[in-house]
């Protein structure tokens, strides 16, 4: 009925009380400030890990199957897997000819080599030999220029496309397109650069990678028997499972595996990573938020404590208010709003501190404090205030006016 008037009056009293006890209020609120800072930063960091993962996973492409010697996630005996025969480049042609549910196949062989351009160099960059079809079988986007053509690829032309980190290292102040870099001494002309991917899986990102035609790769860096990854893009995402079955059949035939024997190759896909990562991410988030939530809990206890002090100190005031007609509810609202106001101030201060800190986190992980976190932490600090204020406020509301008026 008069709820709004009561709330308004309650808030006015709260702010007067908070101002009257500035030092105490600041110290009490500090617990909430620290709690909100740690919870929001943790949420921001978790958001960053998730975003980094999503970006990395996107680089694999949702519709791409990776036929490889090694599985990405496995609980099989490592020795058995290591003893598998390497995959070979000629498989690609066979898969292309026999599979009906796919629209691109590309072999990828990779090694590490030193890159140089003028005085700039980069140690241990990844060098991948592949075909023109690669661009359709990976989640990469060209930033500038082009990928090499089928003719350049089969002709073994000395051209290359480079990742963003390679471009930054070798060409800090120059446009890389058309320049000739040396990959372990052999010259390659840059025809394209990729957009930066970032992400968690350094070994899979295109950022620190140079792509050269497969034929050139084999000529310069040898190893026709080097293990090959066969990247297959499925024509229709809805037929992913069928395509996988078909691919498995073709590979078993190529490798002459008798029925009943297990595969001696693995078919990997992005889903495996997301499925593996999701529960890990959930556990990290739960534990992280729980631990940081503890500090908020401690802050709440601080608020409860000081509210008990405040109620005891103002026993007489409560008696006066009751004598002139304040109902239990009125007193309850008065003290609840004081606790909530304290926590709200703490929450807002906490956010004001956490926001610049989240920009520092952003330097390490691709993140920004999510707007939802801002709203949630404001709501959480209100809730903490109301919960921790409840017992003291309830005690105040239930005071006997006669006793309270007699209190010295």
């Amino acid at each position, binding site marked *: *009925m*008069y709820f709004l*008037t009561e709330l308004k*009056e309650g808030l006015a009293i709260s702010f*007067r*009380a908070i101002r*009257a006890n500035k030092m105490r209020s600041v110290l009490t609120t500090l617990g909430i400030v620290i709690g909100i800072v740690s919870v929001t930063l943790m949420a921001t960091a978790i958001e960053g890990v998730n975003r980094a993962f999503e970006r990395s996973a996107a680089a694999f492409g949702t519709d791409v199957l990776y036929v490889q010697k090694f599985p990405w996630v496995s609980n099989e005996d490592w020795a058995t897997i290591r003893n598998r025969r390497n995959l070979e480049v000629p498989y690609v042609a066979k898969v292309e000819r026999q599979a009906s549910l796919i629209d691109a196949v590309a072999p990828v062989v990779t090694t590490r080599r030193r890159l140089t351009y003028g005085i700039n160099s980069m140690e241990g960059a990844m060098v991948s030999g592949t075909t023109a079809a690669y661009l359709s079988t990976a989640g990469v986007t060209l930033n500038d220029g082009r990928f090499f053509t089928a003719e350049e690829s089969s002709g073994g032309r000395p051209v290359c496309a480079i990742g963003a980190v390679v471009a930054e290292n070798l060409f800090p102040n120059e446009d890389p397109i058309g320049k000739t870099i040396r990959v372990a001494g052999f010259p390659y002309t840059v025809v394209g650069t990729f957009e930066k991917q970032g992400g968690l899986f350094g070994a899979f990102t295109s950022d620190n990678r140079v792509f050269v035609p497969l034929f050139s790769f084999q000529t310069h860096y040898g190893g026709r028997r080097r293990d090959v990854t066969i990247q297959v893009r499925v024509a229709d995402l809805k037929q992913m499972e069928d395509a996988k079955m078909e691919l498995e059949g073709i590979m078993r035939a190529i490798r002459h595996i008798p029925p009943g024997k297990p595969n001696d190759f693995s078919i990997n896909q992005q889903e495996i990573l997301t499925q593996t990562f999701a529960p890990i991410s959930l556990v990290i988030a739960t534990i992280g938020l729980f631990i940081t939530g503890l500090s908020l809990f401690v802050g709440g206890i601080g608020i409860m404590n000081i509210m008990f002090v405040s109620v005891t100190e103002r026993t*007489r*005031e409560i*008696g*006066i*208010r*009751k*004598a*002139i*007609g*304040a*109902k*239990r*509810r*009125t007193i309850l609202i008065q003290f609840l709003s004081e606790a909530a106001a304290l926590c709200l101030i703490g929450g807002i201060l906490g956010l004001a501190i956490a926001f610049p800190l989240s920009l520092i986190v952003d330097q390490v992980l691709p993140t920004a404090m999510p707007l939802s976190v801002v709203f949630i932490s404001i709501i959480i600090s209100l809730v903490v205030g109301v919960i921790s204020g409840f017992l003291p406020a309830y005690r105040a509301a239930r005071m*006997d*006016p*006669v006793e309270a*008026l007699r209190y010295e």
Partner: protein
Amino acid sequence: MNVIELNAIVKTYDMGGAEQVMALQGVSLNIKKNEYVAIMGPSGSGKSTLMNIIGCLDTPTSGQYLFNGLNVSDMNDNDLAKIRNREIGFVFQTFNLLARSDSLHNVELPLIYAGVPSSERKRRAQETLANVQLGDRSHHKPNELSGGQRQRVAIARALVTKPSIILADEPTGNLDSKTGEEIMMLFEDLHKAGNTIILVTHEAEIAEHAYRTIRLRDGKVESDEIVTKRRVYQRAHAS
């Protein structure tokens, strides 16, 4: 018409265990509208307990209390709060003003609890302060006022809801005699204006301002008589 009707009011306090203290042992009395009554008695006579019950701050253990014909003996906390808010104006010995609030806000407070809208609240509080000659002190806090001024703010607070009774507990107890006289004159004026006043005191001199004195002893009414020799201070300018 009786504003207050007490029938065989008993109040006992549990002192822990089986021990009980009987503060009021069957008090019956009536107070009419526009009466000016003093309740007297030595300490331990039960006058504070009686005042708390009349003021609806406490409920009797047994007996019936009719306030304006309404049975308040078994009302719940909220209904009692409402009665205190609208029907009873308290004036305390120690003033009991809110230290952090100015006079205006102190006087406004009962109206806030009554749900009166802000602008009307301010107007009525200001008006009532002016009636106790404190119209120019509305933004002073209690510690910026003299004792007499504080008690007048408290009286304004008691009056602002136009209550059925004014319940004053030793209203001059913390004031020097000169200021006490002023306050008693103010009560005189209030009584003339039609207010019902109940004065709780142990000082015979103060009780003599009333028209009727009820003496309590050991939780019972010892005597209930009309004051024959009323003491009325004359205002300086009126003499």
